[in-house]
């Protein structure tokens, strides 16, 4: 099972006329951060331990995800199709959260992170650092997906409005940190500095390394006793941050 690739319109193992539920779901608008969880991961009951208590129509939802024929209705009356669909999404979000924390899932996500598929940090002082999707909670229905920047150790709203309905539980609160624990070489260095102020011919637009913003009024810093003086710069401080200037500023030393 290869990682789902948004650039290839139809992967080789599914025929394009009748894609599996998982591939259909991952191809929906705004769902391009998701991985297609392999069937053998879902078919292993051990991986789904405890989920039957969270999802109401667990069996029907699982059958929908795996494209199985609905089993014979037992004593429980068959629920509405829309409710099964909602439960299938709910179940898939929790399975997805578990899968991307496995070795295989982390490997695929690390590849996509290296390609910058999840976007860049909106903070200017992070120098276009690649970000990872993260949830603030592991439970569904709590909060939407956020983006985690490993450089400033902070979370941001996705800039594109297609992601505002994505549940954070698809990724969970541990995923990006688990990825950097597993692949520590992917952690961005913040300790690279320009030896001298870069000219604009040297660096691409806005490309700069880690810096902390210094507000100035007509070139002067505001005194610490003033109510509007900067009080939050310490929170952007990382080991190795030496100077509170952006590199193209006039007083960069």
């Amino acid at each position, binding site marked *: 099972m290869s990682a789902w690739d948004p650039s290839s319109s139809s992967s080789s193992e599914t025929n394009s006329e009748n894609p599996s539920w998982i591939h259909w779901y991952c191809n929906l608008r705004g769902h391009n951060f998701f991985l297609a969880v392999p069937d053998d991961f879902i078919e292993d009951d051990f991986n789904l331990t405890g989920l039957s208590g969270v999802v109401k129509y667990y069996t029907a939802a699982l059958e929908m995800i795996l494209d199985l024929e609905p089993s014979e209705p037992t004593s429980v009356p068959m629920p509405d199709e829309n409710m099964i669909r909602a439960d299938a999404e709910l179940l898939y979000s929790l399975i997805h959260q578990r899968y991307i924390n496995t070795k295989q899932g982390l490997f695929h996500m690390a590849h996509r992170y290296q390609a910058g598929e999840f976007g860049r940090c*909106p*903070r*200017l*002082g992070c120098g276009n650092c690649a970000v990872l999707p993260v949830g*603030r*909670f592991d439970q569904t*229905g*709590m*909060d*939407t997906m*956020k983006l*985690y920047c490993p450089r400033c*150790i*902070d*979370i*941001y*709203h996705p*800039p*594109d409005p297609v992601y*505002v*309905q994505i*549940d954070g539980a698809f990724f969970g*609160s*541990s995923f*990006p*940190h*688990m990825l*950097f*624990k597993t692949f520590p070489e992917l*952690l961005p260095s913040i300790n690279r500095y320009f030896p001298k102020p870069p000219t*604009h011919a040297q660096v691409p*637009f*806005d490309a700069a390394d880690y810096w902390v*913003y210094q*507000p*100035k*009024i*007509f070139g002067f810093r*505001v005194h*610490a006793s*003033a*109510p*509007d003086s*900067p*009080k*939050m*710069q*310490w*929170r*952007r*401080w*990382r*080991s190795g941050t030496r100077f509170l200037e*952006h590199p*193209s*500023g006039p007083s960069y030393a």
Partner: protein
Amino acid sequence: MSVPSSSSSASSTAYWIEWHSRLRGHEFFCEIDEDYILDRFNLTGLNLDVPHYAAAYDLINDCLEDTLDDATRVEVDRSARLLYGLIHARFILTQRGLAKMYEKYRLGHFGRCPRVLCGGQETLPVGLTDTPGMKSVKLFCPRCEDVYTPPARRHAAIDGAFFGTTFPHLLLHTMPELVPRKAAGSGFEGVPGGARGTPLGAGMGAGADTLSRYVPKIFGFRVHHASREHHLQDKVAAALGVQR
């Protein structure tokens, strides 16, 4: 600034300033008062930066005679935008300009801070340099005191020098009551507004505590390298004498 010229549409509208403020991506600009432009004292030195200064000035004031050839017309069109932007950078530092920009800030015309823990704080436009043609406009968040790239791509074509490096800080300096509350005594990090979180689709919860800091955790346990950085930040805060 290399903005594709559209001189034909410029001549079809009665007022150049009105046409300019309706352009795509120009919603960060406020309309400069006419008497501010007409006072030549306010434009001191701009003739050195702007080519075709006199013609551009006439175009802004809608009194340019249409005798120019097409090539010059395109250049004058570009110069007029540059001149207007540079006057704008000066105007928004005046009392009248600050009041106009405050009104836009209050109405949320500049967008919100992308940082989750800022809880949807309104931002202010800022430039990273006062020299035109260097960097596009950025957004300054008064709560986390940081600068961000605007999410909309159309703003990447707006010059940051048309707002200047000083503007948001002068606005907060003249109206200190606008500075968001920062020195709150909450010791609980990471989850502003309690552990409830915001419901799906509700967007951003207001009133987030600025001092809350995102704490990376793996299955509930803090991550070592992040904790080390946070410890360093606490030491820096203590050294800077920040009241926490």
